[in-house]
């Protein structure tokens, strides 16, 4: 026992957790700042949070191409982790930018909100850099617990409570699956380090026929599928997304989802490589189900937030196509897609924040009738995000889908790619419907309540720039995504 402790202490390499450490420390300090701030004043907390995110981002970028191992191999800050960490940081930064004015409008300016986002991000970073099942689990829990609070943040609003509670119950349930799966894997292989499990499987190929191993792998994957909202583990998504504060919905659909994808990729490609034949089928079926169900249900939605919730389910399905491919292009494609998705989806949610009224009324299709004429710039930005979500060039949505489908076709999954593009075709209809209302219908209202909050507008500008940059000259970041593969 003493040896183990000593070994652990010697193996501590703070460099490997530096970005998340910065966020954790900043988060705890900011909790105190929030307590001692005058009531209702949170703007300084927001900017300090962004500052800490920027610092964490710089530290992450500086560690590019310089893999750090820490804590006796349970944390590995490699390019893969750095890439996903940057996605989470970006998502958190955009969330905070679009939050402050929104919280004031909803009359709930509470400083604890920002540290919670920082903790979520730190948890996400442990997930993406964890190479030990326990680390991944810890990260997932930190992330989830903070998100449960954030999802139900407006404690005086019923639908927000419903959102938080639903997310908590179902989330806890799925975490049970995850942990049980991890326990079974440990039982089979005698270790929780994923690279050791991978080596164990390689040394004993028979183990992939072992019922305990298979059950463990599948149960663990179930936990991740829940987090990325793959059908049929998606039931929580629409209600939680619709009920949660809009910035948090945006955040959930991008940051934590990317982290869950990262953990899923690392765990499958390292530990469960031996099960490739079977898992490909599992992913294949889930990807098709997720895309199709998400898109088909989104078709009939009238509430914009709920429509985007279903669309985000569908997008998880597209990303899973990259997993089916099980090659480098597909894996890098998923990474690139999560980055693209962060920009386009968070941008769309930021616009919902601006056009929503207090209490989130008016986020229906009829509610945006004629918006394009009353708020031309907002309309153009919304169109850019919608075209990106459809996957049309010259936006990032196209290059992202291209990357993923290229992976699938390269691996010979042509029919999956065909189903994927047909799904995109289905999705055209409901995205177009928003534009039909924005531009082809006459304005019903004067949208006098729409105020262009500066910080939220900044987040929209960043998102537009990202969507166009990654759509027109995506080469550099595609290259980074390639380097981030392992």
């Amino acid at each position, binding site marked *: 026992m003493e040896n183990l402790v000593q070994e652990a202490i010697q193996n501590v390499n703070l460099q490997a957790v530096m970005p998340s450490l910065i966020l954790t420390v900043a988060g705890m300090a900011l909790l105190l700042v929030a307590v001692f701030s005058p009531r209702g004043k949170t703007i300084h907390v927001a900017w300090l949070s962004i500052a800490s995110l920027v610092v964490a981002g710089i530290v992450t970028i500086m560690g590019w191409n310089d893999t750090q191992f820490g804590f006796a191999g349970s944390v590995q800050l490699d390019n893969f982790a750095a890439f996903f960490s940057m996605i989470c940081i970006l998502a958190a930064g955009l969330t905070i930018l679009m939050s402050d004015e929104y919280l004031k409008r909803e009359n709930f300016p509470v400083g604890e909100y920002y540290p919670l986002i920082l903790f979520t991000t730190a948890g996400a970073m442990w997930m993406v850099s964890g190479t030990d099942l326990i680390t991944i689990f810890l990260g997932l829990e930190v992330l989830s617990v903070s998100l449960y609070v954030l999802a139900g943040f407006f404690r005086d609003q019923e639908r927000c409570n419903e959102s938080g509670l639903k997310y908590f119950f179902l989330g806890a349930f799925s975490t049970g699956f995850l942990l049980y799966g991890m326990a079974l894997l440990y039982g089979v292989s005698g270790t929780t380090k994923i690279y050791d499990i991978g080596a164990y499987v390689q040394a004993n190929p028979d183990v992939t026929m072992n019922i305990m191993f298979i059950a463990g792998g599948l149960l663990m994957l179930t936990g991740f599928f829940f987090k990325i909202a793959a059908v049929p583990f998606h039931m929580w998504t629409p209600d939680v997304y619709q009920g949660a504060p809009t910035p948090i919905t945006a955040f959930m659909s991008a940051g934590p989802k990317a982290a869950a994808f990262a953990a899923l990729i690392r765990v499958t490609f390292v530990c469960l490589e031996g099960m490739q034949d079977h898992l490909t089928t599992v992913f294949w079926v889930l990807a098709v189900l997720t895309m199709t169900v998400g898109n088909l249900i989104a078709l009939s939605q009238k509430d914009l937030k709920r429509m985007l919730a279903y669309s985000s389910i569908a997008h998880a399905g597209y990303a899973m196509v990259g997993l089916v491919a099980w090659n480098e292009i597909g894996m890098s494609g998923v990474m690139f897609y999560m980055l693209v998705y962060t920009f386009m989806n968070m941008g769309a949610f930021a616009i919902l924040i601006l056009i929503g009224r207090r209490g989130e009324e008016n986020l229906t299709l009829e509610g945006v009738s004629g918006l394009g004429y009353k708020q031309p710039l907002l309309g153009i930005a919304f169109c850019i995000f919608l075209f990106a979500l459809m996957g049309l*060039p010259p936006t990032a949505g196209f290059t992202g889908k291209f990357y993923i489908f290229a992976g699938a*076709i390269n691996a010979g999954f042509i029919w999956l790619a065909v189903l994927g593009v047909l799904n995109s075709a289905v999705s055209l209809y409901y995205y177009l419907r928003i534009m*039909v209302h924005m531009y082809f219908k006459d304005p019903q209202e004067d949208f006098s309540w729409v105020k262009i909050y500066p910080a939220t507008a900044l987040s929209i500008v960043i998102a537009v720039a990202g969507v166009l940059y990654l759509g027109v000259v995506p080469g550099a970041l*595609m290259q980074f995504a390639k380097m981030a593969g392992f």
Partner: protein
Amino acid sequence: MADNLLSIMTFLPLVGMVALLFIPRDNEAMLKGFALAVSLLTFLISLPLAFDNVFKTSGGMHYREFYEWIHVGEFFQMNYNVGVDGISLWLVMLTTFIMPIAILSTWNAVKKNIKGFMAMLLLLQTGMLGAFISLDLFLFYIFWELMLIPMYFLIGIWGGSNRIYAAVKFFIYTAVGSLLMLVGIIFVYYYAVQSGSPVSGFGVAEFYQLDIPYNAQFWLFLAFGFSFAIKVPIFPLHTWLPDAHTEAPTAGSVILAAVLLKMGTYGYVRFAMPLFPEALHTFIPFLAFLSVVGIIYGSLVAMMQEDVKKLVAYSSVAHLGFVMLGLFALNMQGMAGGMIQMINHGISTGALFLIVGFLYERRHTRQISEFGGLAVKMPVFATIFLIITFSSIGLPGTNGFVGEFLALMGAFESNLRWFAVFATTGVILAAVYMLWVYQRIMFGKVTNPANEDIKDLSAREIVIMLPLLLFVFWIGIYPNTFFDKMNPALEQLIDQMNNQVAVVEVVQPTVANVLENK
């Protein structure tokens, strides 16, 4: 300048569009003038292409530009790879030529949100020019999809009463086709890479050299051909066209007819046919059959229309049937006829839509029964309309004759003889519906009091029509100006397709064996 002529020409409208956004919304004269100036300047920049004699001697690509664009190691590479040859030359010229006319035609017709309208037209022009000059399939796809967005808004915002339905239908129809093509494009690329043949990004020149097994060609031709067939449109995929044409504003219809439909036929000539020559031979009887059905069906339906714009829209289906039939003849006459017929259709049908637009602006109706006896009231209009009618029918001396005659002759000389026999009835049917509609609108007594004080064409409207009339006769009387520059490229294309098939015929048994062994 000459080095980057194509890029400057293509992106000038886009730059113009961005600049346009900074012009105040209510300064309508300036918005219109600026858009017109940009489109005229684009036309001027493209003019040297038309006068360049290099196309007479060499069928290859000229004005090449090549830049590395997206390079992701061994994953995939795309280049900015553009050029024109005799095939795309006249389509590029048609685009730059028709654009100022389209903008000028909207001078008084569009009332709401002129800024957005002009911006969309300019964006559309960049998309169209880019698609014609792209030599990299990925680049082509980007421009191809880029055309969808402005057209969707043009129909949806400035269209008629049923515009939303028409816009969404147009968008989804074309997007579904092109998405399947995307899968095909990616497949061809990885096939090329994995078979070890040299590739330069998604460059078509390298893909032409590929020796794709027949069963893959079959599916690929289906994917590409389906996408292009929707755009042409080939019967029975044409149903979006009458809706889109009828609802679109005049400028939108003109561009849709003159240029966008050519994207489909151009796609066949440039991509689907030379890339998959073996599969092409399987599909030719089928596609030729559909083309003939399109000719006859389009003509018959056009005949029964009560809305003159719908009539013109259905006549497009018939005209493009001739284009396709000529192309599928795969001989010099047929292909040249098909190519020149693309230009003809752009000019004649574009002009017809303008004429319908003139009528609509005056009377706010397009019902044929509302008119009658206009020849007395509008003599200039009557003359122009008659010339365009003859051109659309294909009367000798006008452009339509040259195109349809060559296309049909080519088909007669190939093994599509019997298809040509039936297609020829389309010429007669065209005379029936065009002359009939001309008679109903122009001749007789003025029965509707609303037509009593209808005004003849204004100077602006005559200026719009004159260049079109010029080309109606130019192509009709001396088409060699156009053929001279088109023929070398077509010869090269035909040679290339024949060679590929010859090579493949030797290889085919082995491919078949491999499949059987599986």
